[in-house]
């Protein structure tokens, strides 16, 4: 799987890739067809990044994972059209610190298209975090499915943590759902963990890992799987030592 260090403004991809952002503005474009694709977008730029993404998927099964664990600002606009007999699975992991504004605009364009997006977010005290996740099933996209779920954990009263799921449905014969859970750590859970000998930081560490690394196999298919896991563990340790 090629690793692309995104230094260019415009990036066109046409195969499974790992994209590591190293530029202020990246315009990512792809038209994926007739295959199975896995794309990992990992933000590793030490300053504000603007990521504009425009994709279209035909006769394909595509998985995209987004990972953003840095404290720098982020503006992300993602527009993906899913065409006939295609599926798109999106997994996002965001650490909400600084200013982050993210919009996912995902379209079931044609019949038998499937979209499934899962967002995991941890918002810290200095966060101004906004995520808008819009799924649109267009007229004629019969037997399509569009599901989204988001989990947002807030720690130490972030300045703003906003997650907005939206579904626009213009066809009858479809399946669609959205779910959102948002809140801080349950005091009873904390007591339970404390009662087993874990102090507050140790308990928080375990909970944060579960948010930022929701599944051990989540990134396993990417060469960077181990690196990502180490990054997440390091980041969690850093947060918990504050």
């Amino acid at each position, binding site marked *: 799987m090629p690793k692309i260090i995104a230094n260019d403004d415009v990036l066109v991809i046409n195969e499974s890739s790992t994209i590591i952002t190293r530029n202020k503005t990246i315009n990512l474009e792809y038209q994926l067809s007739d295959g199975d694709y896995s794309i990992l977008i990992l933000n590793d730029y030490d300053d504000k990044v603007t990521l504009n993404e425009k994709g279209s998927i035909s006769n394909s099964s595509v998985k995209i994972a987004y990972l953003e664990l840095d404290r720098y600002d982020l503006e992300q606009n993602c527009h993906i059209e899913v065409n006939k007999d295609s599926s798109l699975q999106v997994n996002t992991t965001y650490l909400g610190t600084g200013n982050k504004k993210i919009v996912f605009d995902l379209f079931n364009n044609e019949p038998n298209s499937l979209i499934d997006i899962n967002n995991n977010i941890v918002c810290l005290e200095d966060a101004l975090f906004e995520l808008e996740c819009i799924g649109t099933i267009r007229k004629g996209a019969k037997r399509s499915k569009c599901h989204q779920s988001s989990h947002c954990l807030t720690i130490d009263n972030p300045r703003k943590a906003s997650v907005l799921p939206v579904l626009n449905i213009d066809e009858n014969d479809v399946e669609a759902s959205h779910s959102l859970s948002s809140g801080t750590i349950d005091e009873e859970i904390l007591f339970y963990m*404390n*009662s*087993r000998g874990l*102090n*507050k930081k*140790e308990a928080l560490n375990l*909970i944060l*890992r579960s948010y930022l690394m929701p599944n051990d196999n989540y990134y396993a298919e990417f060469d960077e799987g181990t690196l990502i896991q180490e990054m997440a563990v390091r980041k969690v340790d850093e947060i918990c030592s504050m």
Partner: protein
Amino acid sequence: MVIIMNILEIKDLHVNVAEKEILKGVDLVVKQGEIHAIMGPNGNGKSTLLQTIMGHPSYTVTSGSITFNGEDVLQMSVDERSRKGLFLAMQYPKEIAGVTNSDFLRAAINSRLEKNISLFKFIKEMESNISKLKMKEDLAHRFVNDGFSGGEKKRNEILQMMMLHPSIAMLDEIDSGLDVDAIKLVSDAILELKEKSDLGLMIVSHYERFFTMIKPTHSHVIVDGRIVVEGDDELVYKIDNDGYDWLYDELKIQPVKESRPLVYSLGTCARNPRGKNA
């Protein structure tokens, strides 16, 4: 050779929950190797006593003391109490989605060790205990209590107790939700741990069956926030046969009636099966 005896001492303990006094002067001493049965009608302070010893933040100690081996427990944080050797198996164990049992238990074990437990030793011990409790083999990789049945949650509490090796364990209705076979398994595991480590136990239960297996050395009945009668296992059997009424008559006391919050319906716009608005 100096033999250290683990002793939990509770003196004249008064506890409030949301401004209401629940415990009204409890005195109790639990030593290692002893098994104390704590009985009493619902809502009279049994769970409050255990939760207070463990340090639940909703319970406020207004007077009295709790010491463990001479140290002031009330000055300790919850995690410190656990690391000192106190353990509470909860009546309603919490679910922690996303955190696996093995990660949770390893972190809990490591929190009380200077050098982390080796992965090999941990897995070996966990597998052996899972097998003793006849739990599912994939337990280590499942999230803590997430999607567990009531019985599985209770067994998981006992598993945690077996892995953490406490000095004094408090079991809050650990037998509720367990079928007859599971009660036997759990009581065998508790007794084995007691034999091995001379564990001291405080057990809240409503069922004589469990106490018959565990064989308490001491028994106490809490009514209206006070221990009103104490004895040995004979008291457990008497209460199982005769209930608490004889005690109320003899001591001229009345239990606190368990209060449940009033639930008001704001109405519904749902339709009933006959097609009329409910």
